[in-house]
């Protein structure tokens, strides 16, 4: 297979194009801007639409409009931009419009910094805006997955009529590594609900207002059922050396790769360490964690934040195994320091 060297941000943008994305609407913000720049170059050449919006509010509403036509469309942003997009994401989730929203994440709160971070985990996995809703959240961990998940995201979005988010740390956006190019997605999904002018049919309406109590409850029940179905069908995780693991480390995105190196080193030192890497942050792969808990005496959540995913791990394990936390922000924990933490915990627990 021919491999090409690509930055994560570019691999993601190219993946989206291969998936048939023909509309990009964004507002510049580091470290996501490369995606917009890539799309600004590419879209006009492939008959697509690129608009640099006046704000992230406008950008996400352009995605709302674009998705409503049935086209595959997306936006990409980071930190403060994602906060502004929450209004639109809530509308899109309610209107059940498929689209891709990318968060090349950086540290907050406030303006924060542009260092890679995972501290938008709560915002991404709990809906983020107002109302009862979810987006599917995929967390890639390398350039190949940046491309593959962009394609996958559009497929999932159409399958469930749901906004799908890719959350990747700034490091992944900048990381360059070889990837295998994918084939373009050719099959078109039928979208009879789309608005495109009502020639030859009854008018379609895309609407999120439900003034009647019953109507409102029914809408929410409908969405809740959809989310249950997604939870039943789409949880994904990668487990590594967990069969006999006494200490299970949980990490996602770039952090999972760094942890993997520490786990390998810990094994060389006789510590039975393992790794679970959630790939879907929502729906959270709780069963994979419960399986990994078989022989575990301790779990360790490693995050580039002050501790957010740890809550999902605790919910999944429901008190069966204690969960420790190691996290930093502003810095990405390196393999050496995670190894030290594993050694420290193993010694403390007598593992």
């Amino acid at each position, binding site marked *: 297979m021919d491999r090409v060297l690509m930055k994560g941000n570019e691999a993601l943008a190219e993946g989206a194009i291969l998936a048939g994305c023909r509309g990009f609407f964004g507002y510049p913000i580091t470290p996501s801007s490369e995606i917009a720049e890539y799309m600004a170059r590419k879209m006009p050449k492939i008959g697509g639409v690129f608009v640099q*919006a*006046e704000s992230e509010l406008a950008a996400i509403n*352009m995605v*709302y*409009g674009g998705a409503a036509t049935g086209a595959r469309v997306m936006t990409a942003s980071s930190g403060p931009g994602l906060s502004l997009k929450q209004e639109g994401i809530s509308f899109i989730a309610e209107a059940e419009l498929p689209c891709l929203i990318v968060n090349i994440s950086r540290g907050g709160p406030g303006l924060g910094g542009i260092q890679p971070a995972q501290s938008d985990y709560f915002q991404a996995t709990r809906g983020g805006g107002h109302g009862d809703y979810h987006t599917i959240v995929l967390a890639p961990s390398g350039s190949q997955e940046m491309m593959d998940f962009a394609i996958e995201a559009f497929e999932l979005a159409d399958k469930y009529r749901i906004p799908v988010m890719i959350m990747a740390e700034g490091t992944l956006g900048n990381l360059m590594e070889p990837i295998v190019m994918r084939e373009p997605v050719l099959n078109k999904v039928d979208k009879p609900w789309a608005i495109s*002018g009502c020639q030859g049919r009854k*008018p379609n309406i895309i609407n999120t207002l439900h003034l009647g109590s019953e109507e409102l409850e029914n809408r929410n029940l409908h969405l809740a059922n959809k989310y249950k179905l997604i939870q039943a069908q789409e949880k994904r995780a990668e487990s590594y050396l967990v069969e006999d693991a006494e200490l299970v480390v949980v990490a996602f995105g770039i952090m999972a790769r760094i942890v993997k190196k520490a786990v390998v080193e810990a094994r060389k030192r006789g510590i039975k360490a393992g790794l679970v890497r959630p790939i879907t942050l929502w729906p959270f792969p709780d069963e994979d964690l419960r399986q990994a808990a078989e022989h575990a005496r301790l779990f360790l959540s490693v995050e580039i934040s002050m501790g957010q995913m740890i809550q999902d791990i605790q919910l999944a394990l429901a008190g069966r195994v204690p969960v420790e936390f190691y996290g930093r922000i502003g810095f990405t924990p390196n393999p050496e320091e995670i190894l030290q933490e594993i050694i420290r915990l193993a010694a403390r627990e007598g593992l």
Partner: protein
Amino acid sequence: MKKVFQRPESLTEARNHYCPGCSHGIIHRLLAECMDEMNIREKTIGICPVGCSVLAYDYFNCDMLEAAHGRAPAIATAIKRLLPDRYLFTYQGDGDLASIGMAEIVHASARGEKITVIFVNNTLYGMTGGQMAPTTLLGQVTTTSPYGRKVENEGYPMKMAELLSSNEGSAYICRTAVNNPANINRTKRAIKKALQVQEKGLGFSMVEILSACPTNWGLSPVEALKWMENNMIPYYPLGEFKVKED
């Protein structure tokens, strides 16, 4: 005779919910008649706002999308770019367009988006109970300017037609009123012209329509029309502010 009272095909049979004397109903009808006359109903996509006209998707007999408060121009931008041969209109109130959606409208106009904006200026927030809007007149009492709008506190009412006409991207900007039959006719002509400007791809088009909200003005329908004539039209002059020729 029969023809005059016939419902335009571009309106549904649904009975509207507007108060007696409200201008929204008339404006819906004018827009629908233009769509009928241009035979574009099946190629039109409308974006309704958050405001009293939030339910407009039930009234227009074409593909409709309901926007978040103020964001209609951004939504219309994307749809028009992806489907350039369709007709796009946004229907927006003065709170929607001139307050929370100021950035979206100014930039849609600046980019010269080939969409038509129907801007219903009734000087206040009708739907939420008559609060002050950027268009509320000086001295006008609203629930959030209970002592009358004062320059020191709230500044001056915004003239959106004038403001947007300064953008190169604006191809047609007109202000009309619906206070009497002559002005209603002029309004319809302006709406049609705006849609034609869109059809020719000349750029952004907007018709600002001075409208009555008898309910929140605390006036009868007849008094409301008088008030519009005596107070609004002097401050918001009628006429075409920008006409780009092809």
